């Protein structure tokens, strides 16, 4: 009865939050029922409950064929490289931006580095096409001009790992630098003043003050990203690689696989199964990460 009394007393507040609750119920909770597709051999006539129930067959196939192992490995490895390399570079940029003299230079370089954050991934696709296209890309053209042997990027898997990592770092550099820069600015000036009086040079000040003070932020950001390590950057991979099957071996991640199951192969059951695996495994990871953070520093725990 207390619920009803509360509803009556705060009618307006409930009405104000109702659209949001309806939205999340409709677009987040109702689709959760749809994970049932993962246990069916989906047919378009049958729909949700008319399709044949196959139990764990889809999962058995995904695990047994080794497909899921490859997808998971790719997703995790890419994310680990993204997270570690990205954070280290952002940290270095922030340290330089905090310490260098030359206001105009700093402002300009910070603006330029933040620019990629604002553009769409389709434009990243345009860059890749322009730079690497086998027929007329800038880099193949440059190779020919320099008299080097021809190299068709779309026939080799090796370079794409680096291209994907490059564009991911490229897009996130400015954003992360701002976060770290804010953390550096929060360090009190008195530490630096005292160190200067004691004769510490700039490298010693960074090594002994800035870095140790940033370690908690660094670890926290890394841990938080670890929770999402199974979520792929669909936009990034799809715009760079697209439907280029030649390159899937080293560039296919769970999200691109799920997308293809839906849009190309129409394998609803298999795609949903891979998505459910990703969601569940991801949930366990977040809970694990949160547990670790809670043990070390309760203030930073997610929940």
């Amino acid at each position, binding site marked *: 009865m207390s619920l009803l009394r509360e509803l009556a007393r705060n009618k307006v507040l409930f009405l*104000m939050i109702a659209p949001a609750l309806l939205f999340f119920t409709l677009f987040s909770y109702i689709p959760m029922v*749809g994970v049932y597709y993962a246990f069916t051999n989906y047919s378009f006539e049958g729909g949700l409950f008319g399709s044949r129930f196959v139990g764990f067959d889809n999962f058995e196939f995904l695990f047994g064929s080794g497909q899921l192992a490859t997808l998971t490995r790719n997703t995790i490895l890419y994310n680990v490289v993204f997270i570690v390399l990205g954070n280290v570079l952002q940290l270095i940029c922030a340290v330089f931006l905090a310490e260098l003299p030359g206001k105009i230079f700093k402002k300009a370089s910070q603006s*330029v*580095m933040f620019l990629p954050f604002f553009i*769409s991934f389709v434009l990243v696709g345009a860059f890749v096409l322009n730079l690497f296209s086998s027929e*007329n890309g800038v880099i193949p053209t440059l190779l020919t001009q320099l008299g080097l042997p021809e190299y068709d990027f779309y026939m080799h898997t090796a370079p794409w790992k680096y291209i994907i990592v490059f564009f991911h770092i490229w897009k996130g550099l400015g954003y992360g630098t701002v976060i770290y820069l804010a953390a550096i600015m929060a360090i009190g000036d008195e530490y630096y003043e005292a160190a200067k009086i004691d004769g510490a040079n700039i490298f010693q000040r960074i090594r002994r003050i800035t870095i140790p003070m940033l370690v908690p932020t660094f670890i926290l950001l890394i841990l938080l990203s670890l929770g999402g390590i199974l979520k792929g950057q669909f936009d990034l991979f799809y715009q760079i690689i697209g439907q280029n099957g030649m390159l899937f071996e080293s560039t296919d991640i769970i999200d691109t696989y799920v997308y293809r199951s839906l849009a190309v192969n129409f394998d609803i059951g298999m795609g949903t199964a891979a998505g459910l695996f990703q*969601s569940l495994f991801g949930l366990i990871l977040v809970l694990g990460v949160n547990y670790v953070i809670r043990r070390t520093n309760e203030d930073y725990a997610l929940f």
Partner: protein
Amino acid sequence: MKIKTEKSTLVFNAAGYTFLTILSLLCLLPFLVIIIGSLTSENEIIAEGFKLIPDRFSFDAYRAMFTNPIQIYRAYEVTILVTVVGTALGLFLTSMAGYVLSRKDFKFRNGLSFYIYFTTLFSGGLIPWYILIVNYLNLKDNYMVLVIPGLLSAWNLILMKNFMKSIPDSIVESAKIDGAGDFAIYLKLILPLSTPGLATIGLFMALAYWNDWFTANLFITSEHKFPLQFLLYKILASASVLKTNIAGNLSPDFKPPTETLKMATAVVVTGPIILLYPFLQRYFVKGLTIGAVKG
């Protein structure tokens, strides 16, 4: 007395300038490459490929594009409409819900916050979401599908809630004593006090709508409903061709621009973001640093 700069500082500065200059150039390079590509003559690209410094500049691609710009105009219309409606409506719903969740006297705020937060932890995945929208909501190829699924995001809502938590309770209390209703308090007091938060989250939303190509890719099939980024995607993938009126009056060695047209489309589609960039960046940096002070 002049303070002598230490040698180590000089080394540090030199390293810093070099490092940041290289990274900045790498960040700019792709943009330059696209702009230069759009200004190269088609013949040169076909003969030799894109170059960093072309032998001959040419505005053919832009000229061709503006012989029949209806497709681009149309896509601009769709994108602007979707961005404006989506951001306005989304901001209204987000701020309203955020306000309710920030009210400390609202009994269910923790439970409902978790109800919303949980959607970031677990989801049914892409496919059930897609089937819901297509089979049950029948929104395929409907303009509304470009707006509705992006209206609210749990992250934005949480951010908004934290912004609003910083508004002192006493303001709400005194307004209540004066007999103001909850909605009036939200509209007349809370909204004006939350403008920095609204601006930041509004920019996040507008950027997401403007740059969205994925929703159209999944749900939009009629060409006249394509938003900008999806049109660009189709043109880049050579799945669609930008229509131009340059077929007739040609000398034999004239090639209609196709490769350069792709690059010119990329430039025209991205233009507004670059023009608004100084303004966007300022608000983002401000918002990020406020948001970073965790609530």
